């Protein structure tokens, strides 16, 4: 009897706390997508892992040779580290420029906001290749940037930006900007403007209000934006190779060289697996950071 009552109570609780979004029938609606993902994402991923376990480029014996080769060479590990670090720098730059932009968008009137949003989203509507080539024209020695610099007398000689890491970081930050601004905007819009007023009424200056109220409340947006931008920057084959050239070797180009130029699929597969794990780890840390801070604030 008691058990039955308890069951009834938990049922009731469950009904109230977990709105039943999905009845068993509706769960099945997700099946086509699940099957699709299993067939076209999980299965190839397993295939990739299997390829990485071959010892020779012509698939003779199984073993961990490729992973030993990867981890046994500081050159390879250096490329992994360079790539992860590149992603971090580009993400940080993107955040520094994206946050004020999102702030302005959030505070603007509805008309100005839709105009700003349109401008922010505009780059997504053009191909990454086109955007990157445009940057070649801007950053080159005879490019817009250097000509302006020389014409204004700010520099005596053109500054090298094309084929340098700072160039790659600048372009990545611009190219991936919408991925940063949109989640930030969403979380900034959710913040009740009264909170800032309350903070001011209690004597906090603007900087303090931002640091103690707005910034912590926008952390989920920062974490989401950084996650998206980081994953996109670290793996941006086109931008990295076109702006960085072959002397800045990051994982996507390295992978491509091993698969296409050197025809060494097992090593390329091992590189892909390790790189994917490394990027996933960083992304996981980022999302943990976002969650941990918000949990503390709301508690």
């Amino acid at each position: 009897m008691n058990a039955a009552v308890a069951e009834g109570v938990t049922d009731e609780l469950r009904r109230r706390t977990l709105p039943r979004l999905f009845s068993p029938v509706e769960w099945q609606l997700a099946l086509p997508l699940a099957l699709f993902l299993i067939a076209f994402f999980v299965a190839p991923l397993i295939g990739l892992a299997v390829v990485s376990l071959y010892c020779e480029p012509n698939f003779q014996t199984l073993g961990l040779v490729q992973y030993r080769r990867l981890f046994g060479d500081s050159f390879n590990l250096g490329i992994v580290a360079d790539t992860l670090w590149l992603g971090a720098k580009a993400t940080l730059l993107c955040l520094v420029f994206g946050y004020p932009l999102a702030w302005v968008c959030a505070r603007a009137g509805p008309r100005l906001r839709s105009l700003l949003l349109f401008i922010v989203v505009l780059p997504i509507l053009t191909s990454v290749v086109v955007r990157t080539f445009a940057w070649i024209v801007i950053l080159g020695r005879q490019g817009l940037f250097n000509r302006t610099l020389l014409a204004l007398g700010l520099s005596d000689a053109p500054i090298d930006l094309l084929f340098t890491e700072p160039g790659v970081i600048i372009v990545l930050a611009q190219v991936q900007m919408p991925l940063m601004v949109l989640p930030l905007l969403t979380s900034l819009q959710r913040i009740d403007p009264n909170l800032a007023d309350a903070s001011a009424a209690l004597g906090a200056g603007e900087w303090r209000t931002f640091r103690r109220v707005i910034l912590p409340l926008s952390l989920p947006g920062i974490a989401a934006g950084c996650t998206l931008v980081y994953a996109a920057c670290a793996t941006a084959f086109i931008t990295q190779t076109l702006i960085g050239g072959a002397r800045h070797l990051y994982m996507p180009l390295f992978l491509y060289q091993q698969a296409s130029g050197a025809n060494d699929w097992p090593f390329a597969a091992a590189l892909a697996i390790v790189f994917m794990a490394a990027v996933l780890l960083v992304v996981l840390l980022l999302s943990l950071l976002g969650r941990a801070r918000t949990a503390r604030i709301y508690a």
Partner: protein
Amino acid sequence: MSNSGFSRRHLIGTGLALGTWAAMPRLARAADMLVAATFPGTWNDAHKAVLVPYFHKATGADATLTIMLATDEIAKLSAAKGSAPPFDVAIMDEGPLLDGLDQGLFDKFPVAKSRHYGELLPVFQDEWGPKISIQAIGIGYNPKKIKIPPTKWDDLFNPAYKGRVGLTALNSTLGMAFMVDLARVNGGGESNIEPAFTALKKLLPNVGAISANLGAHAALFQQEQIDIAPYNFNFVQTLKAKGVDVEFARLETGVPAWRTSLHTVKGAQKPDLALAYIDGHIDPEIQAAMSKPPYDVIPTNSKVPLPPEAVRLIAPSQADLSKLVYFDWRKINQGRSAWIEQFNREIKI
């Protein structure tokens, strides 16, 4: 669901409409369409402007060009082995061609059905696919910045060109041929690449940029990011015709060259169209059109004379083409992956 104003019939109707729409490209493709691989630069330009229209007139079919380096073609074809290949006609340089033949990626060229195969000079006949041209390399330079035309690789080392030299990665035949020839003039060759790496180390202070892919090499000259670089004869001619300040300089130490060929991919969807396309490329009419500026493609059909610029810069006559510097690509292929790795280590900043 009923209150959402979204009936099941509605949903199914939309789904069907979307399905039909998605199937449309397949239907359009079913009406004769050939997919042919082409190289960036001159080749893409010439194929689009000359060969594809001719092919359309001759067969009534359309051809889609897809731009890829030969090594990329091999990678894609070997990945697609056993299923429908991503393109029907491959364009190959000598090194990747050997890889492709080893992996059984191509069909033999139906010589008996070809109208123009017999007109090719004997050195350009190949049962696996006719050679459509010779690609020669030398030095591309900006005549506005460099007044004395360079004559040998050694000229790239001139301290005056600090930061002004461009190179390209080893995934292209240009990059690979440059390294092998650099080894050759320094006492090495296909079996001994070390002299090239020794020279490369000395060259690095002069190197302003190394393009990761050949397509971006042109942008280096266009944006005046560099003034001097190893480059293909045809690419320089095409770039010059587009108004870029660039000239081709012939190497006194010998002109490195390789043969470029077209092949029917094994399992091609339209082998007959592939034959028509490839045969079109060795048709004297097409080769004559492609030998004109801005392409200056070196012909392989005995009925077509060498273009004047090729006579001036590459070889005085067709018979002299055999005196260019050719490499043993079998040996180069054996070293390829180790050289790419060494190149990465030497050049990385």
